[in-house]
């Protein structure tokens, strides 16, 4: 099975302002992605945009996989206008997903903004463990996937920067309040997160303070997705590591901020 394949678009649907879910149906047999892994997608057959763009996996089924993306630039502007039936080239699944959750450990999932994509994938795969889910966004309009989470019986704790929904503040603030209330139980938890770098940074300090294992999915500009261009490095206690090949998931305690 080649990691380089063509996929036909089944659906490309706007779910909130500037946020879309793209459903792809690979034309050949592909490797099943794990939550936290990602695909590089070509949005054009021409030379501009030139490089493929990385998108983490949002949902996997037998025949399809879904990507949740936010329109932020030239490539995603083009992607949002793709129609059902259009065929695009994809490379993946790439990188390492979230580590397997140990028995007797309660997962705490934390998502900031469009960072909810890989955590929704993780939530679906571990829903039997009834994970706690903290969902944050700048405002109510940008809160994503609340209904999808409720459908799998997860009722997220919500935080918005402006207080327009849930708690006013960041998801890390919300988690901090929770951990403080339940400090006797924390050793049986493990944190899985994705969101802006500043959020992962705060989270790593918080997890360190409570001595909880924590993993974060990282994002960096990258060209190749396979560990060749060395564009997407993060600084860790073991030296520089590539987000695309050695990540995108890293233990937060290993990161040098």
């Amino acid at each position: 099975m080649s990691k380089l394949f063509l996929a036909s678009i089944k659906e490309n649907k706007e779910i909130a302002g500037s946020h879309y879910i793209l459903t792809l149906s690979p034309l050949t047999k592909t490797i099943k992605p794990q939550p936290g892994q990602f695909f590089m997608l070509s949005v054009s057959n021409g030379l501009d945009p030139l490089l493929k763009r990385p998108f983490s996996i949002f949902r996997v089924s037998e025949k399809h996989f879904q990507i949740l993306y936010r329109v932020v630039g030239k490539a995603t502007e083009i992607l949002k206008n793709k129609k059902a039936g259009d065929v695009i080239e994809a490379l993946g699944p790439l990188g390492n997903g979230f580590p397997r959750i140990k028995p007797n450990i309660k997962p705490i999932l934390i998502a900031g903004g469009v960072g909810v994509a890989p955590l929704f994938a993780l939530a679906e795969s571990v829903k039997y463990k009834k994970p706690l889910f903290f969902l944050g966004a700048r405002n109510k309009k940008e809160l994503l996937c609340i209904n999808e989470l409720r459908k799998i019986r997860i009722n997220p704790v919500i935080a918005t920067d402006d207080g327009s929904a849930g708690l006013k503040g960041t998801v890390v603030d919300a988690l901090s309040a929770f951990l403080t209330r339940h400090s006797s139980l924390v050793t049986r938890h493990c944190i899985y997160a994705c969101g802006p770098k500043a959020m992962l940074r705060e989270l790593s300090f918080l997890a360190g303070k409570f001595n909880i294992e924590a993993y974060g999915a990282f994002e960096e500009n990258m060209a190749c997705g396979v560990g060749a261009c060395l564009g997407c490095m993060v600084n860790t206690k073991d030296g520089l590591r590539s987000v695309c090949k050695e990540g995108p998931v890293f233990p937060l305690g290993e990161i040098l901020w």
Partner: protein
Amino acid sequence: MVRLKSNLSVNIGKLKLKNPVMTASGTFGYGEEYAGFVDLNKLGAVVVKGLSLNPSRGNPTPRIVETPSGMLNAIGLQNIGIKAFIKDKLPFLKKYDTKVVVNFFGNAVKEYAEAARRLSGESGIHALEMNISCPNKQAGWIAFGTDPKVTFKVVSAVRKATPLPLIVKLSPNVTDIKIMAKAAEDAGADALSVINTITGMSINIKTRRPHLANITGGLSGPAIKPVAVRMVWECYKTASIPIIGMGGIITADDAIEFMLAGAAAVAVGTANFINPKATMDILKGITAFMSKEGINDVKRLIGGVEC
């Protein structure tokens, strides 16, 4: 129908390649990153990411930003060092029937010579490509690839340090590349790689900050192809040593264009990032072109431009 098998082999001085398709340093890792996509046995040569005597950390991120039909990079020559390469990466490459070209650099003339000496003692390395042209190094270093006197000095020192075929990778960030080509040839280079990336810059107009942490970076991709073709042609007319052409090769047509301008072989760079099988598609395309045009030897393309 009788089909004559076309001859794809080319010579880069003493280095004999089964076909003219190579990888460009820094875009193909140490070979293993792409082994799942490309049969490395089918490549003319694998050129590995630039190495130095000691490991190097490179620049802060963001290191990459896309620009119209191109990309800027400021990796900063991050690498694992020669020792780790020989121990951990070279054994893998030795398993393949291809030529291994090791790209390397130093921070002083002595370091260049020492690096070349270390690499020359290893079996499985078929040629050296000397990087004097990274645009992301400090001002003093840039002189290696932009001041012909310094170029002559450093290439001469490396020439004395290695019996391996020596390829010198030239910078396009000069007024007259012909002078640089001549300096490298006079100092004993066996071949020239033309061109490295072109220094560029890109600014986020909302934050008013450069997109790259390093502020400037090296431009590669189709955006630089006409500049590269012109420089290959200029070097071809000036120097009497073979040229490896590179700079924005995406398709077989691009590769053929470089050969017509004077390149004896081509190196595929940024295209690997877009399509991990790009080298194989280019090789197939060259063969198809030759068959269609009735060309039985790829060497007939070299310098074939009529002007």
